[in-house]
Each structure stands twice: as structure tokens, then as C-alpha cells.
């Protein structure tokens, strides 16, 4: 039998919960500091409004050359970035402008580039334009969606398990979301709708993972009535450890392939998923289960 975790493994996870809390605390703190320094998440045009144009040139160019060409057309506020994940000669041009006459902006860019590089020299591959009104709508809806998802999970876990477990689960998701947003900010990734979708998926995955552990705790509790909850949780975490790792690894494997081969359009999306799945797996042990221990120590359940 091929086993990554030998049966009867007894790692004292709960005893080391403080190390976990400390680690998570530090990661979250770094993320939050990065967020503060960047002035909040780096909202993409989905949420902030603006225009994004993806252009492929027949050959790689210096950014300054493109910038120059746009400058001539009076488009100075644009940021230009290589988009290597999509291939060589591929660039993203971003603009914060989103006046009512937005249709005109992509034409202006097109004209400016034609003037400099000729008709055949480039190809506009993608245009995304989001007006400020839609951006604001999406932001509100996104926050609503995240809260709604969390409430849904809280209710489901409270119904299937006990409230103290639900608290641990929700603490863990909040942890995962904060850590992921923080790391995205550190990596200077954009916060877009696909990234939000990734966050919600992470929430689902993390809870999924947490529930497997909780399920085992629930199963073990009647059997180990005499033991302290901490011990019960430790045993349960150990028993489910190989499954936790196996599923995590198989999911990550696919995501890493997607990250490298899936193309630039979903690059940030898969990046967020990878970060989230790693931390979601970690948090079901070190945050979700450990929180139940902390909760139990603070508010011991009355023995009948």
C-alpha cells in the first residue's frame, strides 16, 4: 500500500495551535499592511471602471514605443504592461477613463496604433470597458455574494454540527479570504470578477475540507467521551490527514497546470485559487479545528 501518512500518526496539531495562530497572524498582518500601503485592493476595471485593451503586435516592442504612440493621440493616462502569459508581443493597455462616450476610446486607441504601426502591425484581441456605475454595482454585489455565501455555510454547519463548529468554520474562511486578498495585493495582482469567483470557490473548498475533519470529530466524540476535546480533535485531524493531503495535492496539480498552460486570461484567477487552496487546506486544521479548541476553553460546554 502506498501511503503518504502512515496509520497511527500522532502529530500534536492542537498543542502547536499557537504556532499556527502566530503564523496566520503574521501572514494576515503582512497582507493587511500591503493592502494599506496600496490603498486597498488593486481593483481591476471590473470594479473600478475603466478600459482595458489587449493588443498583440507582430513583434515584441519596448513599452516606451507604445506609450509614445498613445501619447500622440493624447492618451497619456494609460498604463501599459507586457502580457507574457499570453505570448510574446502581447500587451495590456489600461485606462481609468470611462466617460459616457466610452465607445470612442477604443477607437482612439485603435487609430493611434494604426498611425504608428500600420494596419498589419497589430491586432486588438480584447476590449473591456466598464462604466463607473457598473463597477460600483458589481462591487456591492460582490460583497453581498461573499457575505451571503458565508451566512449560507454558517447556517448549514450549525444545522449539521454544533454552533461552536460553525464559528470555527467561519473564522477559517475569513482567514482564507483575508490571506488570499493580502497575498494578491503583495503580488500586485488585480482584483477582478474572476478573482472574486476564485475567492468564493476557496470559501467552498475550505469549508469542504473543514467539514471532513469536523465530521470525524463528531464521529469520534461519543467514542472518546472521557477524553478532552483537544485530544479528540487531534486524533480526528490525524485520521483524516492523508485524505486532506491527497485531495489537496490532486486539486493543486490541476491548478498548477492551468496556471502555466491555461493562458493569460485566467492567470490571476488560477493564482488566487492556488493560494486559496493551499491556505484553505492549512486552515481547516490550524484555524477551524484549533478555533473550536479555543472556544471550548473559553466557554466549556456544560456536561449534563
Amino acid at each position, binding site marked *: 500500500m502506498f501511503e503518504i501518512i502512515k496509520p497511527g500518526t500522532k502529530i500534536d496539531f492542537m498543542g502547536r495551535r499557537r504556532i499556527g495562530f502566530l503564523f496566520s497572524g503574521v501572514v494576515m498582518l503582512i497582507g493587511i499592511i500591503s493592502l494599506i500601503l496600496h490603498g486597498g485592493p488593486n481593483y481591476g476595471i471590473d470594479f473600478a471602471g475603466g478600459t482595458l485593451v489587449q493588443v498583440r503586435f507582430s513583434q515584441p516592442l519596448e513599452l516606451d514605443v507604445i506609450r509614445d504612440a498613445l501619447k500622440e493621440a493624447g492618451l497619456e493616462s494609460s498604463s501599459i504592461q507586457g502580457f507574457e502569459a499570453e505570448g510574446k508581443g502581447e500587451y495590456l493597455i489600461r485606462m481609468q477613463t470611462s466617460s459616457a462616450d466610452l*465607445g470612442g476610446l477604443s477607437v482612439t486607441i485603435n487609430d493611434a496604433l494604426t498611425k504608428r504601426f500600420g494596419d498589419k502591425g497589430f491586432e486588438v484581441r480584447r476590449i473591456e*470597458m466598464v462604466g463607473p456605475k457598473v463597477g460600483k454595482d458589481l462591487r456591492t454585489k460582490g460583497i453581498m455574494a461573499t457575505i451571503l455565501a458565508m451566512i449560507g455555510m454558517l447556517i448549514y454547519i450549525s444545522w449539521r454540527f454544533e454552533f461552536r463548529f460553525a464559528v470555527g468554520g467561519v473564522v477559517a474562511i475569513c482567514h482564507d479570504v483575508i490571506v488570499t486578498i493580502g497575498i494578491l495585493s503583495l503580488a500586485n495582482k488585480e482584483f477582478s470578477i474572476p478573482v472574486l*469567483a476564485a475567492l468564493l470557490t476557496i470559501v467552498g473548498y475550505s*469549508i469542504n475540507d473543514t*467539514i471532513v475533519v469536523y465530521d470525524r470529530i463528531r464521529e469520534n466524540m461519543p467514542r472518546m467521551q472521557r477524553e478532552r476535546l483537544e485530544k479528540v480533535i487531534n486524533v480526528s485531524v490525524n485520521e483524516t490527514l492523508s485524505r486532506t493531503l491527497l485531495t489537496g495535492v490532486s486539486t493543486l496539480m490541476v491548478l498548477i497546470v492551468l496556471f502555466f498552460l491555461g493562458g493569460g486570461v485566467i492567470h490571476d484567477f488560477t493564482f488566487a485559487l492556488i493560494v486559496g487552496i493551499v491556505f484553505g487546506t492549512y486552515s481547516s486544521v490550524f484555524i477551524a479545528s484549533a478555533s473550536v479548541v479555543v472556544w471550548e476553553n473559553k466557554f466549556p460546554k456544560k456536561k449534563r
Partner: protein
Amino acid sequence: MKGSLQWRFLLILFVLVGSLIFLFPTLVKEVPSWWPKFFPQDKIQLGLDLQGGMHLTFEVETDKAVESSAERLKNDLRDNLKKERIFYTSIDRVLGDVIEVVLLNPDVKQKFDDYLKDQYPTLKETSSQKEGDRVKVVLGMDPRQIEDIKKSAVDQALETIRNRVDQFGVAEPDISRQGEDRIIVQLPGVKDPERAKDLIGKTALLEFKLVDEDADLNRVLAGDVPFGDVILYQRVVDPKTGAVRKIPYVIKDRTLMTGDTLKDARVRIDQNNRSYIGISLHPAGARLFEEITGENVGRRLAIILDNNVYSAPVINTRISGGEAVIEGRFTMQEARDLAIVLRAGSLPAPVQILEERTVGPSLGKDSINKGFTATIIGGILVLLYMMIYYRFSGFVANIALIMNMVLLLAALAVLRATLTLPGIAGIALTVGMAVDANVLIYERIREEIRLGKPPRAALEAGYTRAFLTIMDSNVTTVIAALVLLQFGTGPVKGFAITLSIGIAASMFTAIVVTRFIFDFVLNNFHVKRLSV
């Protein structure tokens, strides 16, 4: 359980064959001619991000529709008050739907009230006060009527946009309403996005107004605009330099006729090979046009589209028959598009583009290729991983996984769901996550074997005890996916759809299908040790 083996086999076979039938149209280039008689021919639809195309969100400025309604009401009321000899000193629309009437003296107030109640039941008095001899009455439209106007403005805009898109000629466009005042237009594979945007977003309000022949253009331009006049411009583009010149006109603001009276509009070519648009009017419009031209011989009639003067020909004679032309140095393309919008009718209110997402065909193709390559490589990795780790049982899980993919794709075809790039990522993620159910079961079985149970009992216990866990953990993922489905835009929705279907399908394949294979093997072969 033993007796049910055949039944389970039939169920699995039924599901598998059914899925393959649904999937067949997607897999082949063209279905055989007899196919549609017996089976569905829906294919998996590709999202705009994969096949290329344009997604537009428009907002109908419904307030403008209310304003122009109020404006018409005001003009109507003004004319009628004159006729009824209800004397007033001024009547103006001051803001939105608010109309202010100043009556000559308090004596006419009663008559005015009666008349209003009788003829304009939707106009409600919000306040009235004496100002010296005069009485100022402020009127507002009934809120219910305002709602109606807004609603019908959006309905009508939807209809008009649909007409325009139909004439523009795009395969399978999708035009739908979103929320109260938004319209979403999706044009797969559109070649010239800018042209499409122009065509759809143009208000195309055609108006016929008289040029004020008495006004002195220079004095008007200096700021001395006669009462009831406006300045409008004609845009003239120099074909050589591309420079735009604007020619001012002093126009009498009263609209004599609008594009409502139009029956048809066609592109014509004159002897100098220049294109113009010939319009023909409905009978009622033709009569009106005859009347207007008859009364204004010698004056210029400006033909105005969206507040741009296109031409202002001198009326030489009374024109009957309801035929007219719009000239204006069009390119052939411009003339054709203009004819389309004129035929489809004007939008009841201006629309604004709130959101645009255009993906070029080459990027779409790249995305499909990359997405599928990644999914297949990821999938193969997972299959290998399961084989190495669980050996025979891993092989069984892999059969389930492949069937899961078949079910997922078939479900996409049945539900006419749209496959997007994040949707492909959802499929890949499902591959990674679908093995979870089998991992849970197999880890359980291993535990049971370690406790010394024989294969059949270990299997039984493994499946039973893992089931609840699988259930609980999948429900939460589905909760997240459902929330996404409610919230997401096109591509993200595609992700939520594939993820939830994939998880649902994995419940069937990972539990029912694998269990059947194990039971079948245990029944037919002598198994001493489970290879798990």
C-alpha cells in the same frame, strides 16, 4: 445488494448512453439527417470569451423619456388652453415632469381646473399660489404614469434594438433585459464591433423642423437667439483631409414631424454616384408632409437626426405622395446603417453604454486551445496519481472520473449552458475535486481493512461511513457555486455551472459507479485482498 446488481448496471448504462446521445451533436461536425427526428441536437454553446464576440450593457435613460413625454404634454396643453380661451401668461416645463402654468387671473383657475380634470387626468396639481393678479399652478405627472412611461420606454428600446440587430446580420444574437432599465446585447463573432455599437446605440430620432429664415445668423451666434429658436449644426467632413466643419443653422424648435411617420427607408444612388436615403411615409405621414410642405413653400425644411442637421432643402412646391430624401455625403456603409436605424425606428430615449466586453476571434481560439490542453494534461496527471496511489481501486476511480466528465459535458449540452474559459477552469477544478469522494471512501476502506475486516465488509463500511461526509462537504461547495450563479457575469456563471454540475455528477459516478464495479468484481472473482 446482490440482487440489485443488474438494476444498477442498467441504470449506469442508461445514464451513460443517454449522456453520449446528448453529447453526440457536439462531438461531430454535422449530425446525420435522421438524428433530429429522434434525438436532441443541442450543442454545447461557447461563451463569447471562447468564440469571440461582443457583450454590451446599455442603460436606457428613462428619465429622458419622461421628460420628452412631459414636453409633448406641455405643448399639447398650451395649444389647447389657447383654443379653450383659458388665458395664461406662461407655460413651461421647469424640471423633469414638472410643468408650471401661470394663469392670467384667479377667475380662470376654476375653468382651468375643470378642463384639466376632464382632459388631462394624468396631470396632477402639486401646488398653486397667487402671485399678485396671477395664479401660478405647478403640475406634475401621475407617478403611476411615469412608471408606465419608463417601463414602456425600456420595452420599446428592447424591441427597437432587436430589430436593428436582426437587420445588422449576426448569427444568434442574444438581447435581453436586465433589471429595470438595462439591456444586454450579445453578438457572437461580430466582425466590426465599432459599427455594431454605433448602429445599436444611436437614438435615431428623426425630426423635420423649419429653418428660421428671418433670423440673422451672426446675431444669433453672438448669443441673441430669438424666442423659440435653437442653433443646430450640420457636420461636413472633407473627404480628402478628414477635417470636420460645422455649419450652424437657426432652427425653429417646433417639431413638425418625426420619424414615427416613416414606412420605409432605402439606400439610393444618384447619377453622380453618391448615396442618399429615400424614405417613404405612412398615409397619415404623407398627408401631414403634404400639409407642411404646402404651407411652407419657399422656406427651408431641416431634416434633423439626433440633433444634427443632415440637410435643409428649400421647399419648392407642395409634396404629395409621401416620398422624401435625406442627403448628406454618406459613404455607402454609413448610408446603409442609417437606413437600418431609420427602418427599425428611433429609440424612445437615449441609451448609454455601461459596459463593453469584446473578445477577438483569435484570442477566443487561443483560449479554447490553452484551456483544453491544460484540462487534459491536468486530468492525465490526476488519473496517474490515483492509479499509483490506489492501484486497482485507483483504476476504478478513474473510470468514474472519466464518466464524470462525460456526464458533465452532456449536462452542459442538455441545459444549453454556455461554456466559458472560467467554465473550462471549473471543469479542471472538478477533476481535481471529484476524486475527493473516492479518496474519502478509499481512506475509510483502508482504515476498515486495518481493523481486520474482510474485503466485502470493509467495502460496505467504507462506503456507508464516507457517504455522510461526502454529502456534507459537497453541499457547502454547491452553496458557494449557487451564490456565484446568482451574482456572476457571463464567464463566471459558466464557472459556477460547470463546478456545480461536476460536483453533482461526481456524487453519482464516485459513489454509485465505483460501488457497482467493486460489487461486480467481488461477486465474480475470488478476492482475498482489496487492492486499495
